[in-house]
């Protein structure tokens, strides 16, 4: 029965898209506006996938890359980035980026050379993007940013950086790169000047900076701290950095030594972060960490993002079955829905048509 349902659903989807292509001029595509979730897939099992849903989590389409392109995505898909027309799916284990049409997800080209353990993708101009790359994770000195020429979709060069570059955020002038440390550990944020086109500063922050947001010329960096299993446990820290004042540290919020927060996110004037199955809300104006949680999550988050009045949490469950996404309304704190995604759902990307 399940098989038949799946078959019907698949044929429906394919039928639908085929239909649209035949009849609509300038087809805007099937995945124009919504939330993409990159499912990492199991380590070395080659079952990474891409899911697509809407802000209300009303409908989920799983395995969209494979459905559209009739090909597997690869091993350990880490993230997805966008230009105006294209999507860039970064596949760490396969050392590649799949470039697709952002609306239809149809594959355009694979960037297969110049990327060793690529992690995240961010544009720095209309013609250039940077991709954080670990290099060989057992070597701590070969980490770099790959420069991607968006016109040719090729890697045109490398910028060596500190160990373990991971997530990036940007404002109009700067791109900030968090160095969580790859297989090891690090405590740096690199500042890339998008006008000068070079790294102009390396900021010291707490151990394992795992997520960042920018609000009104302040860069917020959430550092998880060293977990207890390292034998050298350090507390999580939240750094507030004044971008316009020479990247000076404006404030440091300290967690307890055994507290290791993650997934810093911003919606309107509130920061959100995750700690031990609880989500905390923190107005950007306050001077202390919140004492009580905003809501509790019944599970273990694999990733969390806030967007447009809602909060989304992915859960890898036991890592051997399809994970889930759960949405919460940030005004009421109430859950809006849960849907099943692919294996180990990680990066959540909002590609919403305003």
């Amino acid at each position: 029965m399940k098989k038949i349902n799946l078959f019907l659903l698949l044929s429906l989807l394919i039928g639908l898209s085929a239909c649209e292509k035949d009849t609509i001029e300038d087809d805007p595509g099937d995945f124009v506006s919504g939330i993409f979730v990159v499912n990492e897939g199991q380590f070395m099992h080659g079952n990474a996938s891409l899911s697509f849903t809407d802000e209300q989590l009303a409908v989920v389409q799983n395995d969209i890359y494979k459905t559209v392109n009739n090909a597997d995505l690869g091993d350990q898909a880490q993230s997805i980035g966008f230009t105006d027309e294209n999507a860039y799916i970064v596949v760490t284990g396969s050392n590649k980026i799949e470039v697709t049409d952002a609306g239809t997800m149809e594959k355009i080209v694979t960037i297969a050379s110049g990327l060793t353990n690529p992690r995240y993708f961010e544009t720095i101009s209309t013609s250039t993007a940077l991709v954080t790359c670990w290099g060989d994770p057992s070597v701590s000195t070969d980490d770099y940013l790959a420069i991607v020429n968006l016109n040719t979709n090729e890697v045109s060069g490398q910028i060596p950086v500190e160990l373990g570059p991971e997530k990036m955020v940007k404002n109009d002038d700067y791109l900030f790169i968090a160095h969580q440390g790859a297989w090891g550990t690090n405590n740096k944020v690199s500042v890339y000047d998008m006008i000068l086109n070079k790294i102009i500063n390396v900021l010291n922050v707490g151990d394992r900076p795992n997520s960042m947001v920018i609000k009104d010329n302040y860069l917020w960096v959430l550092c998880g701290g060293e977990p207890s299993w390292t034998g050298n446990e350090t507390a999580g820290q939240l750094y507030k950095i004044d971008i316009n004042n020479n990247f000076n540290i404006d404030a440091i919020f300290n967690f307890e030594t055994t507290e290791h927060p993650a997934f810093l996110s911003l919606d309107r004037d509130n920061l959100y972060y995750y700690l031990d199955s609880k989500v905390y809300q923190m107005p950007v104006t306050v001077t202390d960490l919140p004492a009580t949680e905003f809501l509790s999550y019944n599970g273990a988050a694999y990733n969390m993002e806030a967007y447009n009045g809602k909060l989304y949490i992915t859960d890898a469950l036991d890592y051997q079955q399809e994970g889930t996404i759960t949405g919460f309304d940030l005004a009421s704190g109430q859950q809006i829905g849960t849907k099943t995604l692919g294996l180990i759902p990680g990066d959540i990307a909002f590609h919403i048509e305003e």
Partner: protein
Amino acid sequence: MYKVVIFIFFIGIFSSITAQTKIKSLYVLDSIHITALTSKKWHKAYHLITLKDTLLTTSTLTDLLFNKTAVFYKEYGRGMIAGISLRGTGTSHTQIVWNGISGNSVLNGQTDLNTFSPAGFETIYIKKGGSSVSFGSGAIGGVLVFEDRIKFDQKFNLQNQSKLGSFETLVNTLRVENSTQQLYFKFKGQFQKSKNDYPYPGYNVKNENGAYQGIDYGVIAGYKINTYQQWYFKSKISNWDRETSRTLYMPENARLKTANQYLLTGWKYKKDLFSTKFDVAWLYESFSYYNNKYLEAHTDSNSKRLLLKNVTLWQLPHQNKILLGNEWQAQIGEGDYIKRHTRHNYAVFFIWSKNNARWLTQLKLRKDFNSVQTGPLTGAAEWVYKLSNTHKIRANVSHNFRLPTFNDLYWQPGGNPDLNPEDSYAGEIGYDIFFPHFKINTTLFYIHTSNLIKWVPVSGDFWQPQNFETVTSQGVETTISVFTTLFKNWTLEDELSLNYHKVLNNETQKLLPFTPQLLGNNNLRFSYRKCQLAYHFHYQGKIYTTTTNTKYLPSYQLHDLSLAFRLNTHWQSTLSLKNIFNTYYETIPSRPLPGRSYEITLNFKL
């Protein structure tokens, strides 16, 4: 980190048959080997699968299992790390027993099938079913037994096998044996080398990081002190250097070096109705994992074991036998991710055996005392009932266990020193029919294992082993073998094995991933004078890869052909064609095994 863990643990997650078993008289316990718990006479209530390499064309243990049994094994690419799974249990639930010594790694609880050469052993068999009472921790699904026998039969034997195969594969195996009335000596050695760059059928990818090279050798010696006493020495040493295969979508440049040493010396005594033996064994293993083969940097781990063992047997009046055994061992494990730890284990075991004309009853008890976690009291009750000369019924129940491995206990990060032993109850009932030219064996089994140790995510990317699951495995196994002479000089032999098992997670009632439900194997052989044509068929049912049974690897069937020609009493040549239809297949997702390939083997015997 995770990647390193994968390789060091070579995780298996979790499951034969030639009907070569010779059914002799059920109830004779007379051999000098009787103090050996590996003697088939101690396992009459089980269907043992004797592995004989009829054509002498197999060279690795995976080859042998694949060709001769419907046993499931998981292989991370040809020649790579591989583990066996009996009756749907895990790869650390089959104990490899080398000359009576439990040989599984202290570090990960398994034996890598591709670094354990089966060449040169006189006896190899698989015993499926709970066996902890005879072989200790880990023998939950069964045991794989390897024996070097010592005979003072004044014979000289020399055998050499040279094999050339696809993917630049070269294997040479030598076995030399000589004995007098008092002395016995055997040398066996095997060398293997392969570029192993097979294409992944249907994909534009080659196994570009899969080259391997290995050597495995041993010396066996025996001295007959007098009519009653014998001294012996046995050894097996191997060194392997393997690249690690890429997956379909993930390139690799890692390399794994492993070394194993098994050394054993002992003395046995038998006079009248009393026999005893003392064994001293030394076992060493080491792993060196190079995440990048071009760099010197690597991580190491190793373990050492010293083992002392005594087994004594009394044959009492009225067909009663009593066996009493003691085994003490010290285990030391250490490595880059494991601080040096020592564990002592003392086991005492007892067997009572009684038979009459139709019945055989064996009761077995064992208790393990361990310096870290004491093992449970284990036991087995086994019966055989002979209906007639051609029919018998056998049944057994057993309680079995597995101690946590050093990796489970001490791996940093993650190791959990508070783990409890895994606990397993098993039962089976079997029916055997055996005519000279026709044999059929059927077994129904049931295994209930709780406290299964599994590495699970605890927080973020931190994983820890926990006593996590309860699993029930049940199924049926059948083997049929036929031998017949068609015409003059024409003979036909067929061996068919079918296994069905259903392995359920008790909590979710889902099938355990990485465990096929259906396995089949068939060997058909036509012989005419000096020629033999063999056709081999192997079937593996689909394997779920998620705990929710939403994804699976499809079933597959493989077909092999081989033609052997005996030139004279010394020379034999075999040409083999494997995976005739170039079928894509894998036992682990994204790790294809070779498509069509060829082999030519030359055997020399003196």
